[in-house]
């Protein structure tokens, strides 16, 4: 829906995932179904609009939002039954699943990964692997889902800093790259740019070609469909030509990964 006018949508339910991440289930007021990797512009009254990736959808749209700024602060204060504005779905989404896919997700990059995993699992595809890095064990989102998925696909979790409850891997997500099951795969990287940078270095060391690495880029986005200019990188608009880009497409743009 290429319009600047948000559609009033009711919050059907809210779950607290961690200290600063909440999952919102929102009334699906827009007909068009999203595809994995797309995002919506969410409008919060008295605050503003922010782009949030779709985590999942069925009867409602599911978003997981981290509290980082003024708008998300206000959003976190809302309760079930409150209204937000919705525009979307925007973006190109992840490429169609065609072969073994490794998803590398960091922090709040897990929700878009969820959209891919849930969708393709529902279509019967099981040739996927998830490498997930969170800051600390208490920052891990979707604990139950991660458990559930591990019944079907390989799920590897690591934390930057462990605690007394944690007996899994401690280290940044590149430290579990040795557990990647298949190098002849499509790699989807979703997370902070510093994580992307180091992940790419490691993948290149492993011999992965630029064409098979996909990045879910992030930029300040306002309109969501390529007319406000904020997310411009080279000739591309992250909201319209992305947010998912092949590394080969953007690797020669100096400011793409900064």
């Amino acid at each position, binding site marked *: 829906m290429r319009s600047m*006018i948000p559609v009033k949508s009711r919050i059907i339910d809210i779950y607290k995932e961690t200290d600063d991440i909440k999952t919102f289930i929102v009334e699906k007021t827009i007909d068009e179904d999203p595809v994995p990797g797309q995002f919506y512009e969410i409008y919060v009254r008295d605050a503003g609009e922010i782009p949030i990736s779709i985590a999942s959808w069925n009867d409602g749209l599911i978003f997981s939002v981290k509290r980082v700024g003024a708008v*998300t602060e206000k959003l976190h204060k809302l309760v079930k039954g409150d209204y937000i504005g919705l525009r979307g779905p925007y973006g190109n989404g992840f490429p169609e699943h065609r072969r073994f896919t490794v998803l590398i997700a960091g922090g709040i990059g897990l929700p878009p990964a969820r959209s891919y995993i849930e969708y393709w699992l529902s279509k019967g595809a099981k040739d996927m692997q998830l490498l997930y890095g969170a800051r600390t064990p208490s920052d891990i989102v979707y604990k139950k889902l991660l458990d559930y998925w591990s019944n079907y696909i390989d799920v590897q979790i690591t934390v930057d800093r462990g605690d007394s409850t944690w007996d899994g891997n401690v280290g940044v997500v590149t430290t579990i790259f040795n557990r990647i099951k298949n190098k002849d795969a499509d790699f989807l990287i979703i997370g902070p740019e510093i994580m992307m940078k180091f992940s790419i270095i490691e993948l290149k060391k492993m011999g992965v070609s630029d064409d098979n690495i996909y990045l879910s880029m992030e930029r300040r986005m306002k309109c969501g469909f*390529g007319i*406000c200019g*904020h997310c411009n990188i080279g000739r591309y608009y992250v909201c319209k030509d992305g947010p998912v880009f092949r590394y080969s497409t953007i690797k020669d743009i100096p400011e793409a990964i900064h």
Partner: protein
Amino acid sequence: MIYKLKKEFLQEYIDDLIKNYEVWGPKKIGNDVIFSKLEKGSEFTDERTILGPKNFIYPPREKIGEIDDKEVIVIGVKSCDLLGYRMLDDVLGIDPSYAERRKRVHFLNFVCTEPCQYGFCTTFSGPRLMEYEMQFTDIGNYYVIECNNKNLIGKRFEEGGENEIKALEIIMSDFYKKMPPLDVKDLDKKISWNDPKYAEFAKRCISCGACNFACPTCFCFDTYDDNGLYREWDSCILSGFTRMAGNINPRPILDLRLRQRFMHKLKFHYENFSYYLCTGCGRCIETCPVRIDIRDFIRGV
């Protein structure tokens, strides 16, 4: 269709338009000339304004969803501005609120017969456009009117022909001699990510944003909440343009932001649309407090 209009009848023509439409045109206020609502034809002047009438199709600040539904005629817009608005259409046209407003505005452009101080329009389309609704050129005692909108034909318009076209061509040929076009062949390929001019301009740029606000082709906007969703003109040379939550900024210094402005206009946009996002109007130079000159930049590439 070509017409001609005796110059002394222009005022009457505008008066006639005012009877049926809201008409905006250049008007003198003090020593300045600005686009204003005309109450009578005598207020009109064909002098150049410092800012073009971009706000008619794209207001500097508007509440999203609010559209006024009046039909407006903007007469006296210069060709460089009008060409810019067509470039805006290519980008913003997809937005229904822009398209709605655009439909209702008729631009009647005036062709410059003398180069202005900072303009370099001959580098792009030049003062005489190929596409127009109604294009006026002053050839001395007459205006030659190239017309594509039958509804706006005035009662004093006379049929024009070969002579009028010849007169136009002579004026244009003179114009091009006085304003030789800059060489922009392959500019999109030659422009560099490391041009030293970005740092040079950043030394003195005071981040006023005038280059973006005065430009007829700049379309970037920001949205915000003020008891409702609003949008306003934005400027890519401001640091908040790309700053994200957590204070992460892909363009943290002014050099990089100036680089974005020039590369977006002269490379990225060309790669997407096959034309440069510039019409050579020179308004960015005129409104820049430190006279950063895009012509210098182009010549230097």
